């Protein structure tokens, strides 16, 4: 069934955008299937691909393990239960590693080793994802563009470039075609956060990176900005203001209440206001799913619920110089 009225005339393109999957196996697998499911010719993954939690599965004896999940320590008594646990961990975006009690103790005492473990597990999962994308998308004609986010380790993201994948394309730092008419530029960095994540830059520096990308665009009327950081005070960036001096960062409370603010980038906003692209695709602030217009530009942050295995995204129908329609999805 044609879902876009103008598709039959060959003028419209359907793009599906999702972001901030944070290592969730289930969400990622849904993302790969979204092209066929939604009849979208272009998939865009907006960054923050890497997970945040690694769960040690500690071997206690032959076929017996324990693991802590969501604050509860679970005993695993069979290989089948172990498989089930691994699947649940994957769905939640957690990494898992089976280890002995001694290994766990040794790791716990060595933050650098834990960090190295994250790099290893993240790279393994990303490589597996690339392989899966290649097998699922090959021959479908569906293009899948991927960029990193502020949370992603640069060395792990190198896996995308190094893979030589045909269907899973690193789109950061280059102008990529969405279709014959539309092009997309992507920037995965963000302004500083209280967590000091791997790919943060100052707002001024972010502006310079964006300007560098914009200089390569020939037709702004049909350009898509895929910037992980949302525009400042756009309603796509609303979240509690945090105290950067505490660990972990704590929400700022005034008069007994949390203070909400726009955590987006002024440079991103300025770029959109100045250049008025067709579409802005953003993420970063999971709780601020929204769509807003800045001048002629439709800006969308579909939010993220990766921990529930739910793929939040947005379908956008693009034609010459305009967005025919868009729809938030929760697949």
């Amino acid at each position, binding site marked *: 069934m044609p*879902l876009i*009225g*103008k598709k039959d005339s060959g003028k*419209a393109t359907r793009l599906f955008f999702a972001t901030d999957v944070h290592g969730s196996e*289930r969400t990622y*697998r*849904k993302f790969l*299937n979204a092209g066929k*499911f*939604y009849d979208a010719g272009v998939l865009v993954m907006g960054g*923050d691909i890497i997970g*945040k939690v690694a*769960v040690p599965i500690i071997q206690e004896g032959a076929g017996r393990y*324990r693991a802590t999940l969501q*604050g509860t320590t679970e005993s695993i008594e069979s290989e089948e239960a172990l498989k089930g646990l691994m699947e*649940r961990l994957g*769905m*939640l975006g957690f990494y898992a590693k089976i280890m002995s009690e001694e290994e766990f103790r040794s*790791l716990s005492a060595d*933050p650098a080793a*834990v*960090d190295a*473990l*994250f790099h290893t597990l993240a790279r393994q999962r990303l490589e597996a994802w690339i392989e899966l994308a290649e097998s699922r998308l090959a021959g479908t004609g569906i293009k899948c563009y991927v960029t990193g986010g*502020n*949370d992603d*380790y640069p060395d792990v993201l190198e896996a995308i470039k190094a893979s030589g994948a045909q269907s899973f394309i690193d789109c950061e730092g280059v102008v990529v075609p969405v279709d014959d008419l539309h092009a997309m530029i992507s920037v995965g960095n963000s302004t500083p956060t209280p*967590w*000091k*994540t*791997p790919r943060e830059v100052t707002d001024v520096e972010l502006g310079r990176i964006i300007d560098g990308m914009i200089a390569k665009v020939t037709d702004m009327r049909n350009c898509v900005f895929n910037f992980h950081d949302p525009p400042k005070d756009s*309603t796509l960036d*609303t*979240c*509690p203001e*945090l105290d950067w001096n505490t660990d972990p960062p704590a*929400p700022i409370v005034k008069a*007994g209440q*949390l*203070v*909400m603010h726009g955590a987006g980038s002024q440079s991103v906003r300025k770029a959109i206001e100045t250049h008025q692209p067709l579409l802005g695709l953003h993420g*970063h602030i*999971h*709780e601020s799913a*929204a*769509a*807003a217009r800045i001048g002629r530009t439709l800006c969308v942050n579909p939010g*993220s619920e990766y921990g*529930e*295995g*739910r*793929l939040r995204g947005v*379908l956008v*129908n693009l034609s010459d110089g305009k967005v*025919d*329609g*868009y*729809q938030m*999805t929760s*697949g």
Partner: protein
Amino acid sequence: MATATAIPEVFTRKASGLVRVMSPYSAFVYNILTMGLIFPWTYLWAPGALPGGKLVWGILLAMLIEIPIAFAYVWLSTALPRSGGDYVFESRVFGGGTAFTVVMSGYVIWILQWVALSGWLLSYLGFAPLFLGLGATMGNATLSAIGLWFTGSTGIIITSILNALIALVILCSGFKNYVRFQWVMWYVVLVAFGVMFAVLFFTPPAQFVERLNAFAAASGGGANFYQTAVDAVAAAGIDLNPPFSLIATLLVAPIAWTSLQWATYSAQQNGEIKDARSFKNQSIIIVGSLIVTGILLALLAAGLERLAGAQFLYVAGAGYWSLIPEATINGFYLWPNIIAVAVTASPIVVLLIGLGYVLNSHQIVHNCYIGMTRVMVAMSLDRLLPEWVSKVNERYHTPVNAHVAYFLASIPVILAYNLVPGWVGLTLGVTFACGYVFIITCLAGALLPYRAKDVYEASPGSKYTVNGLVALVFTLLGVAAFIMTAWVLAQQAFASAFLIWVVRLGAIAAVVAFLYPMRNHLATWLRGDKAPWLSALGMIGGGFGMAMVVAFLLAPSLGVLGNWNFADFPKGLWAQIIAFGIIVLSLVWYLLVKNQQKTRGINVDFAFKEIPPE
């Protein structure tokens, strides 16, 4: 390089992510305030309509029936901790068409009536007793006259519109301002109830008649009010010492449910609640608030009975239900707070109780706006309401358009509520309407482990299982409660044998249609295999909840929706036409919008359909 830290047996790395604003304690308070300790009907309606019914037991029964429903919401909230609550739960299990029709009709449209009710409560149960009480205790006729102004339609309309407008301004200015204000409301309400309980439990019953008479006289009523009222009610043929009735006690439960059914309302804000995936937190928020409120409401009934005596509660109920003017003080019904105010001679006590009722009344309109605007934003993002509805104000970070739209829509309802004869009778139609929303969500919970298996299995509640035979027994109990209620009450509602059998067979057909797709799972339960606790509780909660919804629809003693008068069609059935018309209207809206969006290349089903991961 991101640094990494170890917490007990889990490694985390520092990464940006979701931060939620509402503490579990705030959500717990929110639910208690939403259930509205001030809702007064139980205390007049039940004694008036259900002679022989035991108030305290009826309230506790309603609480017990609500517990499995509340637990179903706990499971659903931890599995899908998103704002939008019922709309999200139902759409995931039953699809967008059902979710939109049910939630749009039962919530968004019907709760406009609750906005009007909030104004009425504020004026009639907040300001009027406050000024009447101050007038009586201070001997000031002007204050008493002001109190009476708040009981007239002009006073109520002006109060209602200002009430809605103030809530609109507070909520549009930022959710944090509301949460700040909520604490003021919470503590004032707690103090007011503490004071009221003290008055009800520590005032010597021997002084009740004397004090009530003095208050009535000071408020413009006649002398010797108590005896006059008792005589008038007895003369009207109302038994003031009816024998205990089990049926009447059972039917008190749906009335008490008008308050207690709101224990689950925090689910609308799940996306804003900290640690919303925590089973413990959600249990405290939803089930805990239910039990606390249920006990407080039962205590209030016990206190009233202790002070005024069971006989006088029938007198007060007769003033409300049988419209006996002598059993009202100058036309003013004898609500619990009026009785408490009447027996105290202290203006400070009157002020404290009055402020509690004023703020709890006002809080209701906030609930209406907060819950419904979130649902409207979710529907707009799903492209089922216009795009401008979901626009969030850049400065205040609130959905101002949705708030303004809901405020404007409430104005005609406020006017109708206070000017159209009989409209006020639809007040408890909200209980019917919201009741079916809650129950369909509860049934969605029963099916969640089978229709959204992966979502369920990843939730913290999935580890709780029960022997299938227990689940089967729960299912049978729920089915029995539903069918028995429909069976018995059908003959109270209809004289025509045809209609009676339509209702009875319809109830059986509904059960079969719901359970047939579950037949394979039911078979495994019969074998004693493990069943999800969620399914067991969803089945029993859904069945008993449906029984209460059916009671509202078929029991004449439970209000206008239960009065089926075909003789004067359509006038005699206007309440039912409105109730079912709203459902049809919502369904038609869904189909029209779906079709219209299709012409723009948008398939609204995509907002709800889950993509297969494999």
